[in-house]
C-alpha cells in the first residue's frame, strides 16, 4: 500500500509542480529549478516503486480511486512489470530533458515559459498515467491529456506558421487515431458494459468465439490508433513534421517516450488483452509488415534529410519499425515456437529501451548544436567536434548506438531480432526476408548516423559559423547527455542484466505458460548470452570478452605508436591540403547534401508531381488550420451582434440624453406630465 502511495505522490507532485511553475513562470531560473526539483522527486519515487514492482510483484489499488459507476468506468491503478518499465523510461528521460531545459530554454527568447514547464510536467504526468491505469476510459483520458499537452509543447514557437501547421497535422492524425480507438473500445464496451481491462479481455474472448469479423474490426481500429501514436508509417506522417519544430528537449521526450506509448498500447491490447488464438498469428504478420514498412522508409528517408532533427525523427520511425517487427514476430511465433517469440518480444522491449535512451540522447545532442549554431540545417554546420568535444563524443555514442555498433546499446537488441527472425524465418520465410531487410536497414542506419556525425562534428565548418564564438554547451546541458550516453553504453555492455530486468516485464505480458525459462533461452552465463531456441545454441555474444579482446588490440596499436615515436615520429597539425591550392576555411566543403548521392538516387522517384526521396515524399503538403468563411462569420459574434448592439445602444442613449435640454421650465413640464400620466395609469390599471 505504501508503495502505491509513493507512486501516487510522485504523480501528484508533478501536477503540483506544474501549478507552481505556472505561477512563477516570470522568473526563468526559479521556474526551471522548481520544475527540475519536481521531476527529480517524482523520478526517485517512480524508480523506487518500479524496483518494488520488479522485486515484490505488481502494485494494485484495492478499490478504485474514483469511479463513474453509471458508465462502468473506474480509475484503477495497476502497475505490473511492463508498466513499471515504461514508468522508469518516462521518468528518467523526462528528468534528463527537464535538466537540459534549464539552460536550453534561454535559446527561445521571445516565448513565455508559461507554455513550457507546466505543460512539460503535465505531459510527463499524462504519460505515466497512461501506463498506470487499468481502465480503458481513463486510459483514453490520460492518452488525450498526453496528446494535448504535447500538442501545446510542439507548437511552442507559435510565431512560425509552419510550426502551427505541423502541430495541426499532429493534432489531426492523433485525434483520428484516438477516435478509432474510442470506437473500438465502445464496440467492446457494448458487450460487457464496463471499461476495465479485465472486462475488455472477456469481451474480446466473447467476440473471438461469436463474431470474429467484429473482433478483427476492433483490432484494426485499435491498431490504427496505436500505430498513429507510435508513428508507424503510413500513419506516422505527423512525426517528421512535428519533431523538428518542437524544442529539442521536447523532441527527446516525444520520440524517446511518447511514441513508445503506442507500442505499449499494442502490447497491452494485442498481446496482453487478446486471448491466445490465431488472431495473434494474423495480427503479428500485419504488425510486422507495418514495422518493416516503417523501418525501410524511415531509414531510407533519414538518409536523405539535411535537417538534423528531421533526420533523427525519421530515424525514430525506422527504429519503431524494428520494434514493431519484433513485436509482430513475437506474436506470430507465440503459438508455434514460444522460445522464438520470447526472444522476439524481449528484443522488442530491449530495442525500445535502447531507442528511448539513444533517441533522447541524440535529440539533446542536436539541441545543443541548435543552441550554439541556431540552425537545423546540416549543410550549415561542420567541424564542431574540435569546439565541442563533449557534445561530439555524446553525439558519436548516439550515432554508434543507433547503428548498433557493439558493444553499444541496440546491438544486442538488433542481434536478438536478427537471430529470431532468421532462425524463425526457416519455418516462416517471410520473416527471413524481413530479417535480411532489417539487416540491410541497419547498415543504412549506420550510413545516416555517420552522415549526421560527419556533417555536424567533422569536416570543415560552414563559412557562416564564427568558430571563435562557439564553445561547449553549459554543464546543465552536458550532464543529461552524459547520463544518457552512459546508459547507452551500460545497456550494451550488460545485456544479461538488462534481459533479466525485461524478463519479468514480458512475463507480466504473456499468458501463463508461454514464456520459457530464462536460462533455457540465454544460457547460464552472467556476462554473455548463449542464445538457444529449443535445439542447440544458435548464437553467442559476450561483450565482456569482446571488450577484453579489443582492449588487447588497442594495446597492440599503442605499442605500434610507441614504436613509431621511439622511431622519432612527432605529431604536427598542418593546413588542410587541397591538392596544392589555397582555400579559405568553409570555402571548400563537402556538405551533407552531397553524401551518398548515387545511392540515394536509387530510392528517389517522382509520382504524380510529388518528389519522393528515400521512398518518402520530399515535401509533405501540410494542412492549414482553416475555419470556413461562413463559420468565421458566425463565430464572429462581435461583428454581427456586439458592435451593432453596442453602437446602437450608445446612439439610443445619446438620443435619450438629448431630452435633457437644461431649461428648468421643461423639467417642470415633465413633472406635470408625469403626475397626469401617473394618475391616468393608476386609474386604468386593474385594481388588486
Amino acid at each position, binding site marked *: 500500500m505504501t508503495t502505491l502511495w509513493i507512486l501516487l505522490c510522485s504523480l501528484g507532485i508533478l501536477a503540483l509542480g506544474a501549478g507552481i511553475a505556472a505561477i512563477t513562470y516570470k522568473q526563468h531560473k526559479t521556474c526551471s529549478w522548481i520544475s527540475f526539483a519536481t521531476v527529480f522527486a517524482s523520478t526517485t519515487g517512480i524508480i523506487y516503486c518500479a524496483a518494488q514492482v520488479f522485486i515484490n510483484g505488481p502494485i494494485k489499488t484495492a478499490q478504485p480511486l474514483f469511479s463513474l459507476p453509471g458508465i462502468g468506468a473506474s480509475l484503477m491503478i495497476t502497475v505490473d512489470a511492463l508498466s513499471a518499465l515504461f514508468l522508469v523510461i518516462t521518468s528518467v528521460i523526462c528528468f534528463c530533458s527537464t535538466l537540459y531545459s534549464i539552460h536550453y530554454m534561454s535559446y527561445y527568447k521571445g516565448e513565455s515559459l508559461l507554455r513550457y514547464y507546466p505543460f512539460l510536467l503535465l505531459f510527463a504526468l499524462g504519460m505515466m498515467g497512461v501506463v498506470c491505469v487499468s481502465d480503458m476510459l481513463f486510459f483514453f483520458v490520460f492518452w488525450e491529456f498526453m496528446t494535448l499537452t504535447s500538442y501545446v509543447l510542439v507548437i511552442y514557437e507559435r510565431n512560425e506558421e509552419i510550426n502551427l501547421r505541423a502541430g495541426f497535422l499532429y493534432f489531426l492524425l492523433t485525434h483520428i487515431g484516438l477516435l478509432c480507438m474510442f470506437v473500438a473500445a465502445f464496440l467492446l464496451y457494448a458487450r460487457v458494459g464496463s471499461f476495465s481491462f479485465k472486462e475488455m479481455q472477456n469481451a474480446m474472448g466473447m467476440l473471438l468465439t461469436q463474431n470474429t469479423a467484429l473482433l478483427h474490426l476492433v483490432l484494426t481500429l485499435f491498431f490504427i490508433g496505436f500505430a498513429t501514436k507510435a508513428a508507424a508509417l503510413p500513419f506516422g506522417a505527423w512525426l517528421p513534421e512535428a519533431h523538428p519544430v518542437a524544442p529539442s528537449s521536447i523532441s527527446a521526450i516525444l520520440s524517446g517516450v511518447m511514441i513508445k506509448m503506442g507500442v505499449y498500447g499494442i502490447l497491452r491490447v494485442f498481446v496482453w488483452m487478446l486471448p491466445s488464438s490465431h488472431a495473434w498469428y494474423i495480427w503479428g504478420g500485419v504488425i510486422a509488415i507495418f514495422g518493416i514498412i516503417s523501418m525501410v522508409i524511415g531509414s531510407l528517408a533519414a538518409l536523405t534529410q539535411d535537417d538534423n532533427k528531421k533526420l533523427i525523427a525519421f530515424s525514430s520511425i525506422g527504429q519503431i519499425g524494428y520494434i514493431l517487427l519484433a513485436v509482430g514476430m513475437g506474436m506470430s511465433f507465440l503459438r508455434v515456437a514460444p522460445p522464438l517469440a520470447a526472444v522476439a518480444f524481449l528484443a522488442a522491449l530491449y530495442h525500445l529501451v535502447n531507442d528511448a535512451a539513444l533517441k533522447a540522447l541524440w535529440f539533446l545532442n542536436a539541441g545543443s548544436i541548435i543552441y550554439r549554431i541556431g540552425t537545423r540545417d546540416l549543410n550549415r554546420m561542420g567541424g564542431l567536434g574540435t569546439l565541442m568535444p563533449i557534445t561530439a563524443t555524446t553525439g558519436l555514442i548516439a550515432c554508434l548506438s543507433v547503428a548498433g555498433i557493439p558493444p553499444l546499446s541496440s546491438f544486442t537488441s538488433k542481434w536478438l531480432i536478427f537471430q529470431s527472425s532468421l532462425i524463425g524465418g526457416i519455418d516462416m520465410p517471410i520473416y527471413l526476408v524481413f530479417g535480411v531487410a532489417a539487416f540491410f536497414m541497419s547498415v543504412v542506419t549506420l550510413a545516416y548516423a555517420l552522415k549526421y556525425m560527419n556533417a555536424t562534428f567533422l569536416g570543415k565548418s560552414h563559412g557562416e559559423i564564427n568558430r571563435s564564438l562557439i564553445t561547449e554547451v553549459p554543464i546543465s546541458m552536458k550532464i543529461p547527455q552524459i547520463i544518457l550516453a552512459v546508459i547507452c553504453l551500460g545497456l550494451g555492455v550488460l545485456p544479461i542484466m538488462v534481459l533479466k530486468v525485461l524478463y519479468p516485464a514480458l512475463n507480466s505480458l504473456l499468458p501463463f505458460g508461454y514464456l520459457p525459462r530464462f536460462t533455457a533461452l540465454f544460457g547460464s552465463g552472467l556476462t554473455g548470452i548463449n542464445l538457444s531456441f529449443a535445439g542447440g545454441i544458435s548464437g553467442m555474444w559476450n561483450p565482456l570478452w569482446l571488450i577484453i579482446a579489443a582492449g588487447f588490440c588497442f594495446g597492440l596499436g599503442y605499442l605500434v605508436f610507441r614504436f613509431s615515436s621511439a622511431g622519432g615520429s612527432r605529431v604536427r597539425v598542418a593546413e588542410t591540403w587541397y591538392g596544392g591550392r589555397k582555400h579559405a576555411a568553409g570555402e571548400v566543403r563537402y556538405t551533407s547534401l552531397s553524401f551518398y548521392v548515387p545511392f540515394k538516387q536509387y530510392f528517389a522517384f517522382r509520382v504524380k508531381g510529388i518528389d519522393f526521396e528515400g521512398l518518402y515524399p520530399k515535401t509533405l503538403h501540410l494542412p492549414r488550420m482553416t475555419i470556413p468563411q461562413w463559420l468565421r462569420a458566425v463565430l464572429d459574434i462581435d461583428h454581427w451582434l456586439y458592435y451593432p448592439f453596442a453602437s446602437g445602444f450608445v446612439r439610443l442613449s445619446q438620443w435619450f440624453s438629448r431630452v435633457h435640454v437644461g431649461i428648468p421650465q421643461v423639467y417642470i413640464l415633465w413633472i406635470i406630465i408625469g403626475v397626469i400620466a401617473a*394618475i391616468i395609469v393608476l386609474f386604468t390599471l386593474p*385594481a388588486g
Partner: protein
Amino acid sequence: MLPILVFVVPVGFAVLVFALGRVHWIFREGLALLGLVVTFAISIAICGRVLGGELLTAWDRNLYVDGLSALMEVLGSGMGIIIVLYSIRYVTRHQLGMPLNPWRHTYFYGLQVLFLGMFNWTCATNSLIMMWVSMEATTLSVAFLVTFYWQRQSMEAGYKYLLLVSVGVTLALLGCVLVYAAAIPFLPGHNILLLTEIGKVTKLMPESVVLIACAMFVAGFGTKAGLIPFHAWLPDAHAEAPVPISALLSGIVIKIGAYALARTVTIFAPSYGAVVIFVAIMASVSMVIGIIMAWAQDDLKRLLAYHSVSQMGYVVEGLGLGTYLGIYGGLFHLVNHTIFKGLLFLCAGALMYATGSRRISELGAVTKKMPVTAFCFFVAAMSMGGLPPFNGFMSKITLFFALADRGLLWAAIISVIVSFLTLACLAHAAYKIFWSKPAITSNPEIVTKKVPFLMQVSMIVLALFCILLGVYPYLIYPMLDCATKCILRILGGA
C-alpha cells in the same frame, strides 16, 4: 428621549458650528465630526434598543422610531461621518482655484450637520405632515451645499434643484393633505396625522382619493428619490456639487424619498394592487431609462448620477412590492446603494483631486499611480453590477426573487438585463479610466497630486463594507429584518 436627541443633537452642533466655525478649523471640522459621532452613537443606541424589540416614541407618539427609522438613522449618520472625514482634506484643501473662505467652509460643515439632523427628524417623526416638513427642510439645507462653488454651473444646478424639488414636494404635500382629509372620519382627532394610525384605515378610504394621493406621493417623493420623469434635477446637482455632497445626495438625500415612499405608498400596497404594479412600472422605467442615459455620459459624476437614478429604481421596486422579500430586498439594496454609490463618488473625487479632471475621455491609465482608488472603484463597480461576492449581488438577487415571487416576471427580467447593462457600463468606464490611454491626451502626465490619507481611509472603509456585506450579509440582516417587520406590522395593522 433618544428619538428627540437623535435630531436635536445634530441641530445643536450645527448651531455651534455656525457660531464658532469661523474662529478655527477645529470648530468646523472638529465640531461637525464630533456632532456626527455623537449622533451616530445615539443612533446605534436606538438601533440596539429597537432590535431589543421595543418601539421608542415621544411627544405623544409624534416621534416614533421603529426598525426602519433606526436603520436609516444609523446609515445616515455613519455615512455622514465618512463623508465629513473625506471632506476634511477634499473640500478644505482642494480649492479649485478659490481663496480659502472660512465662512463658506463653516456653512459647508454646518449645513451638513444640520441636514443630518433634519434627516434624522424625518426618520424619527411619525406625523404625515411633519414628515413632509422635515423632508422639505432637508431639501433646503442641502441647497447651498450644491451651490457650494458658486460658479455658473453650480448655481444653475442649485437653482434647478431647489425649484424642481420644491415644486415636486409641494405636490406630495397635496397628497398628504388628501390622505389626511380622507382619514379624518375614521380616526380620533389627535391620531389622524400619525402614519401608524392611517395605515390601519387605508381600506376604508375612497379609492379615487387614495389613487390620486398615491400619484401625488409618487410624483413628490419620486422627485426627491429621482425617479424618472421627476429626476431632472438629479444629474445636474450630483455633477456640480462638491464630491462629498454628491456622495451625500445620492447616498442619503435621495434615500429620503425612498424612505417616504416606503412609509406612505407601501401602506396602500396590500389593499390596492394597482399601486404595486404602478410602482413596479415607474421603477422599471427609471432603471431602464437611467441606465440608457448613463451610457451616453462622458462626465464621470454625471454617469454615476444616472446610475443612481437606475439603482433607485431597484430600491423603489422592492419597497413597492409590499411583500416581505420585496421590502427586505429593497431596504438591503438601499443600504448597499448608499455604500457603493457613495464609494464610487468618493473615488471620482479622488480622481478629480489627483488629475483635476472628471471627463472619462481625459482620464486614462492611472492604475499605477492610484492603486487604492482603482481597487475601491472596481469593488464598488462590481458591487453595483451585482457580481458576487459583493453586497450588490445579495440585494439584487433578493429583489429578482421577490419580483418573480410576486408574479412580476417582466419586471424581474428587466431588472436582470439592467443589472448586466450597469455592469457593462461601469466596466467600460473603469477600463477607459484605469487602463486605456486617455482619448484626449492633454498632458502626458495625468496624475499630478497624491490622494491624501484621510480620503483613502474613508474610501477603503466603504470598500471593506462592500465586501463584508457581500460575504457576510448576516452582519446587517437583523436590522433589515426588523425594519421589514416594522413596515409589515403597519401593513398588518391595516
